[in-house]
């Protein structure tokens, strides 16, 4: 117990020092400063009890094929911050991730977001079925308007690049994770999407269509850098 508190104190002091140094160097706050702390958390976890991110999200947030955990590399900084805060506030729940998010201090949330938003590790290996990918591409680019499903690209941007801070990049995203998010929106385990735009469409798509879209986006390789 005491050891733990001591560690937190030292970590806090170190961070304060690093922050002061960073402010002196850069003269302004921003995601770049937290990235070093973020890298440390990704590898070692936090004093507050968050496990090392890389255990589930892979080295540099590349994702791990065969798990339902997301690739974080290259996602928008503000998007990641919002997701972590939403986990903390219960707008998004997950038995694995919620306790991790609870173990992050506000500055640590920003630090890991800064770190992962700046990474660009190699894409996950893709072994998807070509016909499934082609079917997914049709839905992603043209929608299923007969079921009132707009094209995914009309919000997530061309080739899953992601748009602004609200619509995450999908290119290279772990397909198993994408499929799981559709389930989470259906069950309301996730209800943090802008204007409920995802919740509105998930019930209009069948499992086959969802799997196809997820496979298509993973097949696109590394995540886009998002928009300016």
């Amino acid at each position, binding site marked *: 117990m005491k050891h733990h508190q001591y560690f937190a104190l030292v970590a806090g002091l170190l961070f304060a020092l690093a922050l002061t140094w960073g402010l002196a160097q850069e003269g302004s706050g921003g995601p770049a400063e937290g990235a070093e702390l973020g890298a440390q958390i990704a590898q070692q976890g936090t004093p507050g009890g968050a496990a090392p991110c890389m255990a589930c999200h892979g080295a540099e947030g590349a994702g791990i094929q065969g798990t339902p955990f997301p690739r974080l590399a290259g996602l928008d900084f503000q998007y990641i911050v919002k997701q972590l805060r939403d986990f903390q506030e219960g707008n998004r729940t997950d038995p694995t991730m919620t306790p991790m998010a609870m173990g992050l201090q506000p500055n640590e949330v920003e630090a890991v977001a800064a770190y992962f938003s700046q990474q660009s590790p190699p894409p996950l290996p893709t072994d998807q079925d070509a016909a499934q990918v082609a079917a997914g591409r049709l839905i992603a680019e*043209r929608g299923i308007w007969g079921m009132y*499903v707009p094209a995914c690209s009309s919000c997530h*941007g061309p080739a899953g690049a992601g748009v602004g801070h609200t619509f995450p990049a999908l290119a290279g995203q772990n397909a198993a994770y994408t499929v799981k998010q559709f389930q989470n929106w259906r069950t309301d385990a996730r209800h943090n999407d*802008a204007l*409920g735009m995802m919740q509105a469409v998930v*019930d209009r798509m069948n499992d086959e269509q969802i799997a196809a879209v997820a496979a298509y986006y993973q097949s696109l390789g590394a995540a886009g850098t998002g928009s300016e």
Partner: protein
Amino acid sequence: MRAQARFQGALLILAAALIIGVALIASAQDGAQQEAPATPSFPPPTEGQYRHTPPTLDELPEGPLADSILRGWEIFNETQKFKGVYTYSDMTCASCHMGEGAVEFAAPVWPAATTLPAYRGKNWRVNSLEDRISDCFAYSMNGVAPAMGSDDMTALVAYHTWMAQGAPMGEGNIYGRGYGTLPEAELEPDYARGQTVFENNCAVCHGADGQGQRVGEEVVFPPLWGDGSYNWGAGMTRIPTAAAFIYNNMPLGQPHFLSQQEAWDVALFMNSHERPQDPRYTGDVAETREKHSNFHSLTMYGQEVNGVVLGDHDNTGAKPFLRPDTLLFEPPPPAED
């Protein structure tokens, strides 16, 4: 002691059974949800109304005609490829004609192929399908249509006509035509209320400044006003048209998300901002508004908003001219009185 342990064991098993049971019920409910997809509900067709389901591109037979139809599809759905040629805006035909121009209450375009030629009050002449398409480019796209008789104009005609396959010629009572019509607003549409609606519901996609969002050079969410948007002659500048579009189509995929009053208010707010000049501009905004009062009585063009008269300028956006040569209209008919 041993009895107590056994009791605790039984409790544990009971708890586990309960959890599994609840999980099973929950997953059964998931299944039920998937069987009854929540598509938006529009009022059903009234008696005698014609309802048409356009064919999809998968049904296209191969050949030169299919190539032309696909070219039409490309111009219609990827209009930004033709920026500086057919459009000087950041809009795409499908920005307003949702779902590739095939969706009910989202201004499906196939009725143009079955109801034209017809007389249109907008330009006081009988319009062909080509004339109608040309108008869209001149106003909504702030551009200039492919030349009459060109392969690209024929391609657009072919695309419209393909989607009309099987629909009866001349039938005017069409279900889901245009954006539908909203009943008159309960409260007079209001700029300030509209601004609140905009900030809470529209800005997330179209930006706090209404200028849309891009990825690199590619427009993802179109601008709602300003140089890159539709010009002052576009049908969307009419408040009732915009209100019906918004109510039945916005946010994307969620018709009827806003109340009708909110749609009226935000339509007024959106159309109370500057945009490129009406190609019918005579050099005087009041005169232009008066000359085209059958149209502009429904817009804010020439009206004062926040101390500024809207449309009182020579700005044509990125378009280096005011009026495309393809834009034809007859002089207004003599006043009736």
